[in-house]
């Protein structure tokens, strides 16, 4: 099993969710994160003057999938989260040694 961590733009969540759903990857965990990278930050204003914010709001999607599904999932995310501008995000794949479903105690394939 692998854990796929995708950092994407907030507004792309719906598209990515839908795309994964269509390929019947339904389970996922999402969280609010802030990121920086090539995308340049924001310049915001105070009463007078400005200040820069370089950590921009992003969403992190975490999905644990079987090894053979990794390519499909990555593909679906890349296709649907892309705008072509800096800041579209990253996908990281990490090894997972075990998965457990809390409700049943099922392990691995049966758990996800």
């Amino acid at each position, binding site marked *: 099993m692998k854990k796929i961590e995708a950092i994407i733009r907030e507004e792309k969540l719906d598209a990515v969710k839908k795309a994964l759903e269509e390929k019947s990857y339904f389970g996922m965990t999402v969280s609010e994160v802030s990121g920086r990278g090539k995308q340049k930050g924001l310049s915001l204003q105070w009463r007078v003057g400005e200040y820069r914010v370089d950590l921009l*709001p992003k969403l992190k999607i975490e999905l644990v999938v079987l090894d053979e599904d990794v390519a499909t999932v990555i593909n679906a995310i890349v296709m649907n989260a892309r705008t072509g501008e800096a800041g579209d995000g990253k996908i990281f794949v990490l090894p997972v040694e075990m998965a457990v479903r809390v409700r049943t105690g099922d392990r691995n394939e049966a758990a996800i």
Partner: protein
Amino acid sequence: MPIDTGDTAWLLISSALVMLMTPGLAFFYGGMVRRKNVLSTIMMSFACLGLIAILWVLYGYSFGFGTDHAGIIGGFNFLGLNNVGQEASAVYASTTPHLAFMIFQMMFAIITVALFTGAIVERVKFSSLLVFAALWLTIVYLPTAHWVWGSGGWLAKLGVLDFAGGTVVHINAGVSALALVFLLGRRRGFPDEAMEPNNIPMVVMGAALLWFGWFGFNAGSALTSGGLASSAFVATNLGAAGAAFTWMIISWIHKRPTVLGTVTGAVVGLVAITPAAGFVTPLAGLAIGAIAAVISYYGMVLLKIKRGVDDSLDVFACHGLGGIWGAIATGIFAAASVNSAGADGAIFGNWMQVAKQLVGILSVGGFAFVMTLGIGKFVDKIMGLRVNRVEETVGLDISQHGERAYGGFLR
């Protein structure tokens, strides 16, 4: 007549209460949009407190309430507050300073403009909104206010009853909102995405300030402190209570009694009782409010859910429909015994009053709709009414105002 200290105290505090309604509206609206547009939504109302106030003293009051020209528009005699002083006006409120009447009216103009912004939040360009607002005040609000409330206005002379602005404020704003929606179109993502209100407690706070301020709006419109103000005050509260309760029940029948629905009901009830407050018995207010909730609820279902019209914060369903029903209801329930300056309505056999009310609704509503389309098209041509795609996606707080609502280490 000499200035009466009690009447003046009541008119001044009422003006302050109506002023507070505009920030109230800012929160009522601001809580319902998505987080990325909270500030921009609040700003649309708050900016009116600056812009409209200035235009009002320069020429607005004069064109609305100055010497009548053919029943259509006021004159130049009050330009720059000329002739508007500490003594009572010759024709309006006779026991309070003219300045007090002038600023009470100012607050109405401000909130009317703020009201229609709710239909086009989350996509309208801020600069264009300001230009539109200035033109709309001048071309739509000032004449129609004169028709209904100006000394010599043609609808006033006809006998159309509008105690505190059901027609001038709510129908005007509601109908114009609808016209603007046709011009601007839907928000990106509507209706597929669930555009969840970001902060319902903020909506409740806004509704609470609106309810509180509305006592000034309606009972202040008596322009004196006494029996009439008290009667309007009670009718106002019952309109709100009746509609809040009714909306809660309808929403319960469909599924659960929501907070958002209950406070929306309260506002709709306040809208509907506005034209009637000082002409009907307090108990009629209860009926007017309850029926208003039914009309607005199903109007909203029809417009938003069935037809997919993205009047984002339902300005037409709340203020347009609520105002129209209120104007008709005034024709039905009015009682000369409540207010000798009013008339008897249909329940006392005077069906003519309903007809008069319809003339008021159609002329003001029709005028507002057509003019709004015209002004809107014009502004769209010269500067564009809508932000671009990226600006809309990023959110108007950042794209229009260079700010975000909630700062912190991260978000």
